[in-house]
């Protein structure tokens, strides 16, 4: 069955922004619906990635699969690690990324 959009003007490309070439997440510059493609802008080159879920404006999309415990990078630096396995195209936020700095709670559990 043909999709509703067939034969109509193509949808304008939704945009995402990567802050550094080594990053494994990008920031979406408009709201993305599940299944939509996002064009990631990176110094002239464009990478296209399909979102597997809704991602609100300003939130992050995973550019590749990230195993649990692996570093998530933005601005070319660590912004924490994956607290669960993160699939390519998934939204990355507090449900699957945890910061590792200044964590008094971890300090306490490691002490006793």
């Amino acid at each position, binding site marked *: 069955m043909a999709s509703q959009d067939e034969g109509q003007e193509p949808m304008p490309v939704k945009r995402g*922004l990567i802050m550094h070439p080594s990053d494994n997440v990008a920031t979406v510059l408009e709201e993305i619906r599940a299944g939509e493609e996002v064009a990631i802008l990176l110094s002239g080159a464009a990478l296209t990635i399909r979102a597997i879920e809704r991602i609100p*404006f300003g939130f992050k999309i995973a550019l590749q699969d990230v195993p649990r415990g692996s570093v998530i990078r933005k601005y070319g630096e660590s*912004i*924490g690690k994956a607290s669960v396995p993160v699939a390519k195209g998934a939204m990355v936020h*507090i449900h699957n990324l945890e*910061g590792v700095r*200044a964590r*008094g709670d971890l300090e*306490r559990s490691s002490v006793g």
Partner: protein
Amino acid sequence: MSFQGYVRSDGSVGTRNYVLVIPQGIISKSICEFIPGTKTILSVDHGSGRTANDRETIARVLIGLGKNPNVSSVILHAASPGVGYPELRVERLADEIASAGKRVEVLDPAKDGGTYGAIVKGMQRARQMVYEASRLRRESMGDEHLCLGVKCGYSDATSGIAGNPAVGYLYDKIVAEGGTALFGETTEIIGAEQVLAKRAVNPKVAQAILDVVAAQEVRAKATGLDIRTINPVPSNIKGGISSLEEKSLGAIRKAGTMPIQGVLQYAERPTGKGLYFVDNWMGHLSIFAGYVAAGANLVIFQLGGGGVAGRTLLEGSPSVVAPFLWTTANPETYRAAKDSIDFYSGTVIEGSETPEEAGERLYRTVIDVASGTLARSETLNYSDPIDMYLQEPRF
């Protein structure tokens, strides 16, 4: 480039021209209500029961505000002359402010006919002082006389990708032209300190950056709490920021790319020009007064959006004698509070302007305001009290 400023006898240059009445109280308020061109501070802390370190911080704020280039002269009200803590004695405050070449008048109710008498004397002196100040003309002065302070707040994804970079461009430009630029918020560089340390002018400054962050991280861990329940604050998380590290890496973009000359305490005056990191706290009632006491003659609050929904009026934070600008890159924030916001860089996200073009436009806005155009917050006659950054326990 240059701006139109007020040249002071110590060579510093003001962007405003106020008579400052300190400290607070009914005497200051009475004077300021009747005499235009005066400013005072509202603070809840007079040093009572404070440690020597914290009392010295209070003194540093009061003296620094008095010496700020935006101040032409100062009226000091001696709350308890001769019997106060040594750090806060009126004679000491008066001498240090006067050392910057400013006229200082002291009101002493015990000698000036009681509280009523001190109010009358203060009003008479203040009228002379604002008249005197008004005779000074602005002159064209180089950007090396600008000293800026910045904080980012209610940060969201727009802050790190467009709002803070526009400020970063401005900071690079001011520093390149020989000016001074202050940034801080120690908790909000945790996770980004390694980036900043590489930009230090020498290994000593690099170590100082790492040391203040390590000390703050020790304090944070001592709480036994998950920092994410404290900072990023709920509005940051609602805006798409997922960890303190991510917030920090976005936050440092407001500091541009220039070398870091040193690490300063809260309200400490830099000894040279260039970019400085201030070991301070993010609270908006605290941070701006500290920058202005350190000599900032213009300050900026770079706003995200989470948590300010419904705020159609943004009052400035207390910056006492320095013009206070609101900037944002969040289109919803801008739409809601357009008449409070001095500069919008959401254009970078929308694709209608490059980051450099936005930064250049911010620079021109800053030059305009430094030269006398009112910051939007100056079109409101309102100030919250200041809350000085005092870190030791009270007894």
